[in-house]
């Protein structure tokens, strides 16, 4: 995947609103990620400058929290639940099925930039376990075959 040039002007409204409010670093980073889909290093430097702290400190905060990503994500972000209920009901098999279908595991993106996979602690839909979310859609009571079909359907739609 090629890195597109980062348009830093997109985050200026965010910085204008929050840079002066103390304790807003996490909120700023959340907004920046909302805009780019991840935290590009250029943006980290810009946030550090605007909030008057070192880039290392911004990185320190950003890397502490699982929500923040540092590489671009695919068009479809798969959030695979690894909560306790999902574990008991076979989430390992679901992760394996995704790997078999797409060749990616936690934190990776397919070469065509279509899919990214992230393991999450718990989506809170425990009664539908095992569960995954793809963008805003939740898929419950999964089986490896169901997963492969869901992925195949998206691929077919995108082909």
């Amino acid at each position, binding site marked *: 995947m090629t890195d597109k040039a980062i348009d830093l002007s997109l985050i200026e409204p965010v910085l204008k609103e929050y840079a002066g409010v*103390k*304790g807003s670093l996490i909120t700023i980073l959340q907004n920046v990620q909302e805009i780019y889909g991840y935290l590009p290093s250029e943006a980290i430097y810009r946030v550090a400058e605007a909030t008057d702290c070192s880039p290392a400190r911004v990185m320190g905060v950003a890397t*502490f929290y699982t929500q923040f990503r540092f590489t671009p994500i695919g068009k479809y972000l798969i959030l695979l639940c690894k909560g*306790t209920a999902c574990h*008991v009901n076979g989430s390992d098999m679901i992760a394996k099925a995704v790997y078999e279908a797409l060749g990616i595991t936690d934190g990776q993106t397919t070469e065509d930039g279509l899919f990214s996979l992230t393991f999450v602690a*718990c989506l809170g839909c425990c009664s539908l376990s095992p569960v995954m979310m793809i963008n805003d859609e939740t898929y419950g009571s999964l089986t490896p075959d169901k997963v492969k079909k869901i992925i195949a359907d998206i691929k077919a739609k995108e082909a």
Partner: protein
Amino acid sequence: MKITVGQGSCGIAAGAAKVSKALTDALSGSGIIPGITGCIGMCYLEPIVDVYEDDGRLHRLVKVSENDAETIADAVKSGDMTKLASLEISDEDKEFLAKQTRIALRHCGVLDPESIEEYISAGGYKSLEKVLKGETPEQVIETIKISGLAGRGGAGFPTWFKWNAARQSRCPEGGKKYLICNADEGDPGAFMDRAVIESDPHGLIEGMLIGAYAIGASEAVVYVRAEYPLAIVRLKKAIAQAEKAGYIGENILGTDFCCDFRIKAGAGAFVCGEETALIASLEGERGMPRLKPPFPAQKGYWQMPSNINNVETFANVAWIIENGGEAFAAMGTPDSKGTKVFALTGKIRRGGLVEIPMGKTLRDVIFDIGGGIKNDGTFKAVQMGGPSGGCIPAELLDTVIDYKKLSATGAIMGSGGMVVMDDSTCMVGMAKFFLDFTAKESCGKCVHCRIGTKRMQEILTRIVEGEGREGDIEALEELCSAIKEGALCGLGQTAPNPVLTTLKYFRNEYEAHIKDKTCPAHECRALLRYNIDSDKCKGCTLCARNCPAKAISGEVRKPHVIDQTLCIKCGQCAANCKFGAVSVK
């Protein structure tokens, strides 16, 4: 006639929004628009549609799909409710709710979470008015003291004590006190806080405002997990409505009491459930705990006196004010008063949210309400308290639900996650699952927690992979006690609990993995061994054709064999065999 569709996150995941849309289309022209409610907690029956007749009679329809929309619309338009018979909830399933006592969840799945009018007409904000206009903060704290309400986030610390400490704490000049709601529900397997916010946001707001009045806070903050987008949307909406109605802001209800309200979305860190870490995160820092004292009641958010309680704790407050502390204290045991909400999941027949008075037994919840094990399996253990808790075995099913009694088993009440396991769940695997979690979520501040959990994770990994060695159990025990003693915060101090409880109750499973290289639950793949019974094998070749590793050979109509050196233990052969000839050990 009124129709509502339950739309909490899990209802929506099960298809409730699609059902709602299909119903809206099917009912167009009839003058009836389906409304929404939050989550009633019967997750295993979602999507759920409630049809109220004009005389108030309720028809609760379960597992509704889009295709049922026409049937429902037809019944509603014609007034012939017998047409709904096939969709109506069974008498057995009605028991799931009938056996509960709902206080924290009293409005969940009943009221429209997006309507302040519905909340007010159900008696909402009356308790706030009662205290603002007729009680001193000290009286409120006294009522909470009488009620015996204790922190529902896990620790079970008396709520009145925290409130009183924050009340008594002097505020530096120019400063203010803060009331914080911990909605960073991080325990994998617990979702009651999410359900309360999504289903009854005004109930939370009212409880928080009463708390703010009691301690003298002029700003209230809800720290919510970012993974709960719907909860954030509904809470935002509710705050805006409450502000407009004069329950939030300056001179609330014409009194001197002023309180602002805001939401802060967390960014994903389990340790932020610890109050000093949560405060660090609120301040935009890495969420790392610090030593107490000073306690947050003395120096909390921005060094000001602050009080932090969990969502479920606040959800009880308005009810206690309305009904009196004695009414709440009348339920439960001498040590634990009131009710507790549990998220019942795992290998359970009827999973969902269960609120019961303290003092019931685990068996009451799992078998009487939850209906026992899915697919007629055998109950093996229940995991309580998430990564800080432990596994309670079948022989302790009659343990009474009470903070002290549960702690005595080695598990904890925790926030109320109850994950039920049958005999197909490996207990060593379960311990490894939680250590994977805590090793990842350790903030890294204390050496014992950061490195100790990592070493434990490594040992557990090698045990489940068949590489366990003599002395591993002892090494685990040593690490457990070192981490418990050496860690600063609750995360580290409780991280060994899943290992300690499984070692206590299921030591034989650890020994089987290490000494016999077998997994009694047949879950650890590396330890499985598939064999074909030559007496049962008909030589149909199905297994050989489906084996992805080409590990099965044999002639047609003659018994086949598995080459163990090639076998990848995927289990395809056992799944495909029509004669039950493939066994696994």
